[in-house]
């Protein structure tokens, strides 16, 4: 049974509900059974196979126009897709949000017409996989201090640097790499193709989170990229940050999907698990936990829904997106932990989803802007005073 205490479904269009239901039944049958083993063994899901299936359904770049082989849906539909995908596993939502928000969006918004025609339909069909290179070993929350450089040399750019904690780094066919132009010190975006000399892709292993997905590093060593692979309309750091807003929107919805899955697992368990001669759901302490989860999820659903409508109207601000990402990931973190508690010892088994969601959400909590950074974005909004940097 879906969790819809405040009848948020009534706020969705028939088309949006149909998309959500279709994606849900597809994921339950085709993808969900693969996740636990992949996570347990840290053998990432076969993203090439999954990308093709997601592509067939139209789940990649769902908000990009049909001219580029995408469904041309609204942001709310993109959010609903993310919600369903993350109810299965956060790594899958990472893949959908990265492909849509961090790879396809920058090409669509900042790319040339040729770049759009060349890459977007293939990305939408899942024929090629993309990744997004911004974070570096020494640069996380402060992207303005980016160390990766780009140097123009005739019709080419020479890129040098390392990008880390990149979803799909190991498998990607193209990477959107952000680098600082040594001449004008502006951050520029480049499409770097797999196999380009000087471009190396590696996977990070021994992760305690997102174990069903590929996360890795991109190494650029005198990597030559032609001028036609530069995103011509990306003229500064603002372009890269605008992509993050897209992906953060997907996270705000996705986190609620994970939270709902945890809540449902805990509720089912509490009704069946008997202690002291009665189902544990009959005890006040358990009921309080369930009520807290329901309350937080319901509030989070309304936040996600409203943000979707603001995005669709083109009115959403980065602060509103930060608010939703921060709140809803906190909801997911709380629900995963609380569900794990209700399940007692069984809660630490991968036979139940909460411990897996709980570990995954730790990544989500600090990626695409840490919880702290989103707090500071909102703090700056309220007071007008930035508290990110200080003079030392």
């Amino acid at each position: 049974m879906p969790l819809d205490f405040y009848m948020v479904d009534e706020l969705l269009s028939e088309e949006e509900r149909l998309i959500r239901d279709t994606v849900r039944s597809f994921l339950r049958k085709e993808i969900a059974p693969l996740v636990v083993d992949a996570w347990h063994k840290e053998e990432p899901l076969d993203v090439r196979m999954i990308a093709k299936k997601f592509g067939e359904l139209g789940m990649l770049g769902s908000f990009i126009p049909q001219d580029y082989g995408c469904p041309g849906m609204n942001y709310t539909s993109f959010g609903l897709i993310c919600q369903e995908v993350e109810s299965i596993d956060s790594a899958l939502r990472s893949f959908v949000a990265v492909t849509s928000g961090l790879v396809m969006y920058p090409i669509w918004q900042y790319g040339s017409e040729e770049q759009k025609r060349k890459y977007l339909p293939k990305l939408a069909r899942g024929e090629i996989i993309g990744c997004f290179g911004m974070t570096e070993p020494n640069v996380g929350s402060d992207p303005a201090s980016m160390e990766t450089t780009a140097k123009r040399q005739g019709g080419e750019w020479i890129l040098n640097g390392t990008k880390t904690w990149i979803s799909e780094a190991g498998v990607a066919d193209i990477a959107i790499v952000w680098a600082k132009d040594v001449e004008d010190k502006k951050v520029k975006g480049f499409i770097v193709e797999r196999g380009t000399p000087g471009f190396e892709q590696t996977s990070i292993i021994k992760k305690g989170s997102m174990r069903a997905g590929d996360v890795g590093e991109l190494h650029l060593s005198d990597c030559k990229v032609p001028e036609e692979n530069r995103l011509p309309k990306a003229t500064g750091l603002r372009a890269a940050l605008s992509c993050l807003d897209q992906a953060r929107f997907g996270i705000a919805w996705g986190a609620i999907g994970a939270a709902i899955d945890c809540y449902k697992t805990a509720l089912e368990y509490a009704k069946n698990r008997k202690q002291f001669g009665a189902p544990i759901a009959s005890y006040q302490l358990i009921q309080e936990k369930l009520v807290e989860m329901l309350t937080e999820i319901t509030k989070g659903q309304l936040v996600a829904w409203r943000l979707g409508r603001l995005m669709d109207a083109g009115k959403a601000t980065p602060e509103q997106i930060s608010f939703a990402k921060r709140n809803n990931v906190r909801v997911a973190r709380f629900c995963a932990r609380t569900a794990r508690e209700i399940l007692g010892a069984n809660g630490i088994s991968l036979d139940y989803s909460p411990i897996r969601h709980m570990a995954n959400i730790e990544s989500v909590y600090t990626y695409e802007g840490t919880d702290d950074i989103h707090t500071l974005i909102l703090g700056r909004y309220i007071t007008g005073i930035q508290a990110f940097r200080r003079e030392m």
Partner: protein
Amino acid sequence: MNIVVCVKHVPKCAEAEIRIDPTGRDIEKHGLVYDINEWDDYAVEEAVRIKEKFGGSVTVVTVGPEEANSTLRKCLARGADNAIRVYDPKLVGSDPYVIAKVLYKVIKNLQFDLVLTGVMAEDDGSATVGPMLAEFLKIPHATMVKKIELKDHKAAIVHRELEGGLMEVVEVKLPALFAIQTGINEPRYVSILGIRRAMQKEIKVLGLKDLSLDESEVGYAGSWTLIDKLFVPPAEKVCQYLKGSPEEVATQILGILKSRGLF
């Protein structure tokens, strides 16, 4: 090959907790998820596959309130060409006989070579609408259909799934009605683009007057059967001991699984 498929928008009861409502004749519908009846899903997929192979059109028909539109949209997204929904508040309480009669009134005015239904509906499980509809239409029918081979536009060879894993092959003259069994195909997932296109298509809505039906012919008034009582039977624990060699026990287990449709 013009095909009409009858579909039903049903509450998904298998995974839900079912409660009896205060009338004692129905279940509490609040909070239940509705979707296309599983058998009908296979019937629609089969119709679309036949259309893709032989051309023609697929028309889906349902009897139900506005919420049933989502089931029709799914059918349109999968490849159906037309959708018809019949509704009137007076239809509430209609038994399978009335539903078959209403469907007959719709379908008799359509051009068709084949009518497909699911074998049964998940909610009431009566499994009678298909055969009754065929009788109303005065066309032959086959139930439990697991395979359809079209010889030409005049006849079809169908495989019927019988108890114990037996298959029966029958030749049926067209036009005919086939009640489709699950597993006849692998229903495709509809794409988001397909849903977008389906949203542009019209769903034709018909009332009792459009079908020349009188209020007295439908709902409780027109029904031949009436639900007297609905209840949850007390849970019984039955333990069956199987005796014999491991091979014999294994054969018996297989037989039990087959008889329960689990294998």
